[in-house]
């Protein structure tokens, strides 16, 4: 496997982390959608590249799914939802963007620290790719908890999933990758449908605390 191919794979993985940061930075709804589309696009590129260098044609399917579903369909769907439900175009965040970014950088550092001691013989480019995908996952989690708005939380979740796809494809010769990515796409689709059906405009935490009290059988 040539040096170049490794570097390209590395480049894609790294740029994915970069896009994750852009997601964290973005605070306009439509901009977020576009950047997520980019995120998905980078993932599909990297998956395709993996398929090419691993001579694993079935990975092309995964790439295609990623491109279709997450780079095109879902952003469009979310766009419609935002328009239909009249969701605010700005995203209210928990804490300032700056602190979120700082936390994100720490997370990347953490994931690299965690991955460092892994022996290289576990697989070529495994260590770096794992570090990158782990950071993408953590950044996605961070996004989910630092955004008060359902759509951006869904986007956070999907970026987590992208990180997983990255890891799965980087794990050379892993079976069931396609099935898994399909299963994941179903999951995401369901979440989006859920948002639409349940009219979850602003938050996952739909009800005010008193309502929750009532639901939790809070009153003797």
């Amino acid at each position: 496997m040539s040096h170049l191919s490794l570097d390209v794979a590395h480049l894609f993985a790294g740029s994915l982390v970069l896009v994750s940061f852009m997601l964290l930075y973005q605070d306009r709804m439509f901009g977020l959608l576009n950047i997520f589309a980019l995120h998905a696009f980078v993932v599909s590129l990297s998956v395709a590249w993996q398929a090419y260098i691993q001579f694993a044609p079935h990975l092309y399917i995964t790439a295609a799914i990623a491109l279709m579903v997450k780079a095109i369909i879902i952003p469009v769907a979310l766009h419609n939802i935002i328009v239909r439900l009249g969701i605010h175009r700005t995203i209210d965040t928990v804490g300032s963007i700056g602190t979120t970014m700082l936390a994100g950088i720490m997370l990347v550092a953490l994931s690299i620290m965690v991955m460092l001691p892994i022996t290289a013989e576990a697989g070529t480019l495994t260590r770096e790719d794992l570090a990158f995908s782990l950071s993408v996952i953590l950044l996605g989690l961070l996004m989910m908890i630092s955004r008060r708005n359902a759509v951006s939380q869904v986007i956070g979740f999907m970026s987590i999933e992208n990180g997983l796809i990255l890891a799965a494809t980087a794990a050379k010769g892993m079976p069931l990758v396609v099935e898994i990515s399909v299963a994941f796409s179903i999951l995401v689709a369901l979440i989006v449908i859920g948002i639409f059906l349940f009219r979850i405009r602003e938050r996952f935490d739909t009800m005010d605390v008193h309502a929750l009290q009532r639901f939790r059988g809070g009153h003797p």
Partner: protein
Amino acid sequence: MALTVLLSCIGVLLATGIVAVAGAGWKGLASNLVYAAALAAGAVMLSVGLSALAAAPSGAETLDLPVGLPWLGAHFRLDALSAFFLVVVNLGGFTASLYGLGYGNREESPGRVLPFFPAFLAGMNLVVLADDAFTFLLSWEFMSLASWALVMAHHRVHDNARAGYIYLLMASFGTLALLLAFGLLAGPAGGYAFSAIRAAPPSAGLAAAVLALALLGAGSKAGLVPLHVWLPLAHPAAPSHVSALMSGVMTKVAVYGFVRLVFDLAGPPDWWWGALVLLLGGASAVLGVLYALMQHDLKRLLAYHTVENIGIIFIGLGLALAFRANGMGLAAALALTAALLHVFNHSLFKSLLFLGAGAVLGATGERDMERLGGLIRRMPLTAIAFLAGSAAISALPPFNGFVSEWLTFQAILVSPKLPQWLLKFLVPAVGATLALSAALAAGCFVKAFGATFLGRPRGAAAQQAHETDRASLAAMFVLVALCLLAGLVPGVFIDALAPVGQQLLGARLAPQGQFAWFTIVPIEDSRSSYNGLLLIVFIALGAWLAAAVIHRWASHALRRAPAWDCGFPDASPATQYTAGSFAQPIRRVFGSLVFRAYERVSMPAPGRTEPARFHLRLRDLVWDTFYAPVQGIVDFGADHLNKVQTWTIRAYLSLVFGTVVALLMVLAIWH
């Protein structure tokens, strides 16, 4: 052989319980069947136990069943100790069942009593026979559970549900403590069989922990202060013959658990063990009787007296530990004999008293002494039985209660030979508390008997009372006879106990059979001796002499006239002393110290017509000190954790995120 018989009897009991569930439909039949079966089983097991106790020196009999914990099975063992407690348990079971034959027809909810009564008996017998940790705890907790069900039998009565709740909670606490104790004894490998534990006794430190846990576990079941709080709630709540079993027998099973753990399994004691047990015993003895004095509920008063007597028993056990730790075999045997004899005696007269209280309850529907009175005329036989019981529990010669307390005093008087100074000073002080509790107990039972049976009826219920049924009376008088017997010829019983001391301490008292006229001589002739038989003979002679002289020379004229009323004729029974007013002087003496008692009398101004009011507030310091804080902590924790329930999904996600990051950091550091 013996064990097979015993276990099959237990099986019969359990089966009876199951049958009772089915047959709860026809009331009379079911109850007669259950109690008859329990009676028969009790009789058989009693005889087996007696024979085993007689033949005890010939060694222990063991039996294994392939049930319970896999790869361990259920071990059973019948040695001197378990044989003795087998006798205690089944004697109580026998009389309670006898009483039940009569009481069963008065029970209003037999469906909630009949299935559990035999199960309760079975559980207690199993505890005594168990020979491995699992079987022991299983039977122990089963016993608690069955008795809990019986406590809840009259669950609609006010406060009974709470009593049952606290009881089950404390029982589980005790079981947990014992669980930990056995965990220590068995070790990580899990050698749960008692034989394995005996083979590998714990180190000194572990043994101390075992002692502490045993005190918590067995003590909470026995009702040792400050673990007694459930007892005066639960025992009275149950039907009376069950109260008799719980107070008279189950607390003894708890004592058995303590003896088995500390004397048999925990290895050689350290001298301070004795000091600790003595302290707890003394505290229980005095506090128990003081609490009892403040009660006006007859059955609760009796329950508190159980606490007192358990204290006396533990004083004996503590002395035995102290002597044993110093290698004073004979003295240890004396103390242990005193304790075990008191176990036996207390099981007798406490059952008797509870059965009497049950008869009163059945005849009047009243447990409150302030509404009773004058029953000696309506129910004379019950009165006689109850009087005998009161005399016995007040340690009055020639009844049996006195003998065991006398032996305890004798053991206390050996204490100067102990090398440790702490014990030297502690033991006489504990002796003082023992004497105090004995005197107070007498006062308390003058109050109980006086308020219930003497004077004039304080209520309609007491006026229309009728003597209770034959079976109940039979049960009571069997116990009266035994109380007298054990008081008149104590030597026989002491000799019967000898094998237990032999087994646990390797020492025994001189056989009492050798002394003429059933005199008992615990240590040596010149030191102390007692002869109940001659004593009663002399008392009888003296009384007869006086009576004879008087009827020979005195006038036989007798005139009935109204009692002296200071010229204020007032027929109202309200003018007589009540239980509360009887205890008032003693409350004045001890109350402020023990109960933080607070009295206020509000007198109307002269000439005003409204009645004077008397306010009394007593506080249960034990509850305030030990239990209220626990409750507070739990409530605090619950209130604060409860907020988590109403968080938003994002908050929950942050929890997850935090956990992930934290664990990753752990990992990063671990590298």
